[in-house]
């Protein structure tokens, strides 16, 4: 009996030993919650089931705390093996040498499938340090009920959706004077001073990054023109100053006709009761493409003392798997950045995606510069000062140029 027990124990240990030796365990940190959170959790489960030799242990971190925690992990030498990062802040981290280059682990044919404007930003100093998962551009929402009750419908009874910013301002003010509802709502932080600004700036023909000078150069006249458009939309009480939740509440509760927000709101709006809305690309300056701001969730591979070739390969396998499944990820409203997925039936079958999928190719991402984290918050603040009347358009433009010169490299 004793011999049998001993044999049994030895065999079990051998089996356990063999199984765990082959299985690579990697840790994964994400910042997704709500609808996106569910999809990502499902991804991890599905991947683990499909790949028995790899176990992904996912940790969801509240997005407000996420970068704090990631920073702590990176400094303490205990980062996750794979994590999410916005491409806009990639340079701030890549420049500190904390991200692992992964070009050698990814086949060229995979990289070629990416939209060029997106994959370019996943590089730093010529090295590929991230695999983009999506792009989430700024798009244009409109509330059909509010427009109808303000009489802003065309001859066929369709709500009037502006194609140019002049129309946006004119019709928005019409709504305000007709019913007292707001013409538009927009979040006063990132949406206003950074995202809308970048969309307008590029539509006017500007581009932040000068290849020739190798740094960010902002044209004060162009910036002033942008601020002029923004300021005009806040005149006559067309747009109130609100934060993200406030602006969204106004739109959902039929108190604002137009709404500038990101595609991620599509995770919420289609299922919102009594919300009768449409979505499309942002209006454009006459003669310009409807360039818009975009960022991208990407998958990064933090450097760590306990990193091994095995773990890195497992992490890249996981990342590629998620990217290949990004038509499912698109349920959260984000746009895939793999060309064939963007054109696929599964993706186009999702509600209203057809109306704004072109925004992916028209998305302008933040320039790849260090200091963007700080600079963009200055952008937010300058624009707030503009719309509350503390800066004139000229002063705002000048302040923006000053900040760019002192903060960005």
């Amino acid at each position, binding site marked *: 009996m004793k011999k049998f027990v001993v044999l049994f124990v030895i065999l079990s240990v051998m089996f356990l030993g063999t199984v765990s030796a082959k299985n690579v365990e990697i840790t994964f940190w994400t910042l997704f919650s709500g609808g996106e959170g569910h999809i990502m959790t499902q991804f991890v489960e599905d991947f683990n089931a499909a790949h028995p030799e790899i176990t992904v242990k996912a940790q969801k971190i509240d997005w407000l705390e996420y*970068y*704090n925690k990631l*920073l702590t992990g*990176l*400094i303490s030498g205990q980062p996750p093996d794979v994590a999410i990062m916005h491409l806009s802040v990639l340079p*701030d981290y890549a420049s*500190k*040498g*904390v991200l692992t280059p992964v070009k050698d682990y990814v086949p060229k044919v995979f990289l070629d499938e990416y939209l060029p404007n997106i994959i370019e930003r996943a590089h730093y100093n010529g090295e590929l340090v991230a695999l983009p998962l999506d792009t989430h551009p700024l798009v244009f929402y409109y509330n059909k009920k509010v427009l109808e009750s303000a009489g802003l419908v065309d001859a066929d009874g369709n709500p009037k959706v502006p194609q140019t910013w002049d129309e946006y301002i004119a019709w928005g003010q019409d709504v305000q004077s007709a019913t007292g509802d707001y013409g538009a709502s927009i979040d*006063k*932080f990132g949406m206003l001073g950074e995202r809308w600004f970048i969309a307008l700036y590029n539509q006017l023909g500007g581009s932040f990054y000068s290849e020739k000078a190798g740094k960010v150069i902002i044209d004060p006249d162009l910036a002033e023109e942008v601020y002029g458009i923004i300021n005009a939309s806040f005149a006559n009480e067309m747009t*109130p*100053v*609100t*934060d993200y939740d*406030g602006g969204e*509440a*106004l739109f959902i*509760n039929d*108190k604002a006709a137009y709404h500038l927000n990101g595609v991620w709101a599509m995770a919420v709006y289609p299922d919102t009761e009594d919300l009768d809305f449409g979505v499309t690309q942002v209006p454009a300056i006459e003669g310009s493409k409807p360039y818009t701001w975009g960022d991208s969730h990407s998958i990064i591979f933090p450097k760590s003392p306990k990193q091994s070739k095995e773990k890195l390969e497992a992490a890249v396998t996981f990342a590629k798997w998620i990217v290949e499944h990004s038509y499912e990820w698109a349920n959260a409203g984000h746009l895939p950045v793999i060309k064939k997925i963007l054109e696929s039936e599964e993706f186009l079958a999702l509600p209203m995606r057809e109306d704004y999928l072109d925004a992916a190719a028209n998305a302008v991402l933040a320039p790849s510069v260090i*200091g963007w*984290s*700080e600079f963009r*918050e200055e952008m937010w*603040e*300058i624009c*707030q*000062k503009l719309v*509350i009347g*503390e800066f004139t358009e000229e002063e705002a433009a000048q302040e923006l140029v000053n900040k760019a010169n002192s903060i960005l490299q």
Partner: protein
Amino acid sequence: MIVTNKKRNNTLAYLFFLPFGLFFAIFKIFPFIRSLYLGFFKWDIFGSPEFIGLENFYTLFGTDKFWEALWHTFYFTILTVPPLVIIGFLIAILLNSKIKFVGFFRAGFYIPYILSITVISLMWKLMFNETFGIVNKITSIFGIESINWLNDPTFAMPAVAFATIWWTLGFNIILYLSAIQQIPDSYYEAATLDGANSWQRLIHITVPLIKSTHILVIILQIIYSLQIFGQVYIMTGGGPGGTTRTLVQYIYENGFKYFKMGYAQANAAIFFLIMLGVAIAQVRLMSKRGEGY
């Protein structure tokens, strides 16, 4: 014999103190000293610190945002300390009387204090919402037009101050109540016999006899108010246009968001000096005046 006992008592005392002392030294004293030290360096958290002497301080004093943050912090303190002290005192007086259901009222005034900072900030943020908030619904009854409280530079800080007063009043009430309850009844009886009315009893007995409590409450309140961060950050984000950004928020942003840790530490050092000044003032004032009776 006596000497040995004293020595043993001392050793025992030190032993009792050791766990806390160790904890205090590692988690409070060491980071504090290191923080002061780092103020003389440039450090982006990832690399190694680079010594730059007083440069952080020069930059600080030359930056408008720093002075603005300092002023916003002082402004908030001015808005909150007088009401929290005076109203706290008055309510403590009321709660000391033998009115019906006094227990219910005492609990009611204290309950806000046990709510977490995030809860009350989000709550008041909703209530101050221009279109949907209850505050505007109430003011409209009196014919006042809707105010965009948290997005208007004039009203944002007062709104946050109001929420803070609602939240932390309970703490001051408790402090005052316990002090008032220690005043012997005989003083009031004697005064009443001499013909003093309730107003005179308040001014000439209650107020003077708890002088050290006044000082305690005022100084504590000043110190807490100077450290304001959470409510403002959640309710206004420091806006609109940075008009409510406080010093602690400025330190946080520089240190943790913009990777300018050395600069943030220098900032924190200045902040520490201000608070030290306040604390010294308290110690001086409290040692001058003992209890009046």
